[in-house]
């Protein structure tokens, strides 16, 4: 029986397992024999880690460690290590990584591993995405309490706690699930711990907190640029994606008239301008070096004028073409901050969602191409939030601890991730909240920002009905500057946010049984809640596992304000809109197919219930 099948049962033995990882510094090395050293460790370790993450080879005996680089722990706790080439036991950091196996509820032995029933309370493990594309990246949190009456954790106070990884399995009266069929449902970074006489509390945070890293990482220094002006030493070296206009260039050698633009190779340095008599004037390059993001100017630059350039930024690693697709840019930024554990399938799907597919001079047509100039030290989350804003995407850490990037795309009823009815909803009725505080009816989208020249292009769009829904006496205007460079993208963006962000923000809050345990943010679910007359496909914005109550609390959105009004390409055989159908049948038809509209935005001109029921996303 698969986990999915087991979770569909109304009576099941749920297995909540946690693997808690900590590490202890291995120090105080004394020579054992040959190149092998030893030190004492009070804990059973599963691996020895060199510096950040390089695992040493585990050996089966002390003799094996003496013979070759690796590690071994004897039964008395002594750890023997022979460092590998380039490693120094005294100058580098070596950590012994320990892992502890716990369960909530019944103790269980799976995969030849005993999971001690020490998890006392796990009230909330929350994974989230933003209800608005423009929202700041939210970081999920959680907490759990472990039994410590016997002082188990008091003995571990020298450990540095690292991660808590949760697994879900389910046995039945007649079947026992193999560990291979268990599913991970969360990897958390342990933020802090608190030990008391009876319990050991852990505060957990999504590894997404890594987005707090400030970028760019490199700065101008005199070692690399001996002739740089004092005023520029210590400033960050920018990163650039897409077409970026009027990027300030930093002079790194005034006598050579050499300037640097970015800390990576560029696809193209298009034009240089200098500020002369308060007017930006194009000047010729003396030379251009896209590989090093540098150029030199000729006689047109006297020695002190400000200089800016138009560029096409970072290149794709394979074909060397411009990196325009938001999925690739997010992946590149994550790699830049050292995050490489990606859900590749999700990133590929996001790439495809933004990729129109045709070629222009070898460059793929792409929707919502970001234009990013990262010229000030800023948290990576802010940059990725900007990308999510324009690309209609979201980023989170999935249940396996991988980065999951997804571009929102509506799903038809047959493709939703899960369907719930009254029979599945527990803990009280669905609560609905509507937030009208940030509605707007007209938007002025500024794009193609000229950073040094301090001006932007702009497009405007309006949707008057938003004003009247908000009962406002005058237009509700939103002005926003977005990291886009393409007018078509900006126009598309302006029209879209009037429907996704300018409308009331509607959210549904409810809990379902373990049948929903494998849901993650971004999933779309069908909810038929007859008690309140709700029948709608919703987007999961937050999935909060409550292992104490054996349920998952969901906060869902109305699919970015569009609810079930999306249109879908369908085959010719699909039935036309039937005005005589019942309301329930029409709701299903809304969630299933697409219909041609007339100028009146009706699929059938005599049926008002067919109004705007097949909009193009």
């Amino acid at each position, binding site marked *: 029986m698969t986990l999915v099948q087991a979770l569909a049962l109304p009576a*099941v033995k749920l297995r909540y397992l946690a693997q808690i990882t900590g590490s202890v510094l291995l120090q105080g090395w004394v020579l054992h024999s040959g190149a092998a050293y030893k030190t004492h460790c009070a804990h059973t370790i599963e691996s020895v880690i060199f510096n950040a993450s390089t695992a040493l080879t585990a050996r089966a005996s002390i003799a094996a460690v003496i013979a070759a680089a690796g590690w071994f722990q004897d039964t008395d706790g002594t750890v023997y290590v022979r460092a590998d080439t380039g490693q120094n036991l005294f100058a580098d950091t070596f950590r012994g990584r320990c892992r502890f196996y716990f369960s909530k*509820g019944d*103790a269980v*032995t799976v995969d030849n591993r*005993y999971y001690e029933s020490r998890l006392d309370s796990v009230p909330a493990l929350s994974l989230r995405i933003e209800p608005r594309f423009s929202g700041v990246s939210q970081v999920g949190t959680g907490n759990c309490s472990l039994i410590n009456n016997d002082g188990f954790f008091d003995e571990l106070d020298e450990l540095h706690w690292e991660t808590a990884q949760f697994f879900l399995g389910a046995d039945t009266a007649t079947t026992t699930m193999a560990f291979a069929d268990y599913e991970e449902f969360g990897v958390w970074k342990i933020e802090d711990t608190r030990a008391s006489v009876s319990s050991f509390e852990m505060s957990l945070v999504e590894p997404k907190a890594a987005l707090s890293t400030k970028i760019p990482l490199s700065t101008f220094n005199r070692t690399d640029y001996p002739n740089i002006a004092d005023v520029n030493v210590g400033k960050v070296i920018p990163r650039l994606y897409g077409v970026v206009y009027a990027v300030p260039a930093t002079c790194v050698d005034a006598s050579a008239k050499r300037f640097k633009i970015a800390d990576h190779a560029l696809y193209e340095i298009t034009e240089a301008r200098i500020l002369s008599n308060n007017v930006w004037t194009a000047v010729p390059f003396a030379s251009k070096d896209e590989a090093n993001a540098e150029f030199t100017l000729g006689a047109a630059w006297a020695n002190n004028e400000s200089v800016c350039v138009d560029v096409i930024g970072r290149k794709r690693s394979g074909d060397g073409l411009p990196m325009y697709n938001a999925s690739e840019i997010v992946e590149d930024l994550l790699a830049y901050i050292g995050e490489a554990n990606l859900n590749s399938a999700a990133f590929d799907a996001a790439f495809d969602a933004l990729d129109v597919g045709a070629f222009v001079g070898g460059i793929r047509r792409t929707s919502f191409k970001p234009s990013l100039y990262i010229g000030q030290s800023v948290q990576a989350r802010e940059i990725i939030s900007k990308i999510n804003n324009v690309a209609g995407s979201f980023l989170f850490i999935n249940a396996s601890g991988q980065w999951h990037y997804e571009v929102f795309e509506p799903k038809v009823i047959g493709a939703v991730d899960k369907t719930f009815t009254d029979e599945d909803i*527990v803990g009280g009725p669905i609560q609905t909240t509507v937030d009208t505080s940030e509605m707007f009816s007209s938007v002025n989208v500024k794009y193609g920002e000229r950073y040094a020249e301090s001006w932007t292009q702009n497009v405007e769009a309006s949707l008057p009905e938003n004003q009247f829904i908000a009962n406002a006496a005058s237009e509700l205007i939103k002005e926003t500057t977005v990291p886009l460079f393409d007018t078509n993208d900006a126009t598309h963006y302006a029209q879209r946010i009037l429907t996704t962000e300018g409308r009331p923000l509607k959210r549904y809050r409810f809990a379902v049984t*373990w049948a929903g345990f494998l849901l993650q943010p971004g999933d779309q679910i069908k909810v038929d809640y007859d008690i309140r007359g709700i029948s709608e496909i919703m987007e999961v914005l937050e999935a909060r596992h409550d292992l104490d109550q*054996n349920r998952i609390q969901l906060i869902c959105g109305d699919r970015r304000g569009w609810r079930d009004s999306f249109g879908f390409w369908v085959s010719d055989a699909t039935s036309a809109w039937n005005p005589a159908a019942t309301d329930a049948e029409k709701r299903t038809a809304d969630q299933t197919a697409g219909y041609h509209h007339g100028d009146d935005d009706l699929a059938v001109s005599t049926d008002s219930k067919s109004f705007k029921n097949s909009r193009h996303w």
Partner: protein
Amino acid sequence: MRIYYPNLADAYSAISASSAVSTLPVTNVTHFHKSRVWRTGTSVADEYITIDLGSSQAATAAIIFAHTLTAGDSAIQLRKSTDNFAANDVLVGTFTWSSGPMLLTFTSTSSRYWRIKFTKASAGVSRDIGRIFLGTYTTFTGLPDWDGFSSSPIDLSQTQVSEGGQDYTNQRSQYRDIRLDASGVSTAQAADIKTFTETVGAHTPFFLQADENATDESGEVFYVRLKKLPARDTDGMVETTLGWQIKLEAKEQL
């Protein structure tokens, strides 16, 4: 009523096994939780646990508890040795296989090295044992009262009800609360019970039979921990001596 304590195996000086899965070592049989098992390897048919008590000590009983030995397994034995089974290897007794607890009682005998040994139906299978008892027992003749045995099952399952009224149940383990009421307890028995409860307290599990001669539930070998230390109340005179009333309340250990 028969109480098996103290468990000499738990206070071992050294313990080893013929084989073990590295993550489920033989020391697990001395852990209080019966669910934490020793798991044999799958390369040899003859398996054993050797317990070194550090010095020669007397025992009268052994229990193999929470195990997966099958009817196809054979030669399930308790053996003892004076030289850690180098040359001296004496059979103390043979267990009768049961899917439940396997109990062996015998005339008091002493040794430093003890071994529980069995032959698996085949080398390629593994067997689990959750708990081993090796020690002495005390029989309390006439206890508990005829109507003094109570077994109350507790189900830890959690049920929630959906908005539609349907039940969802997370099935959990069951255990039993065992209660033994004894009246007319002699002063000598009361003293033995006092010694026993002071030893195990409300913290250390032990093995118990309400009626060692019964074949119903009251004759079962229970693995329990006292829920609280029992009061010792005088209970009038039993013939010419003072009688005592003692109620033991214990929780089955999982």
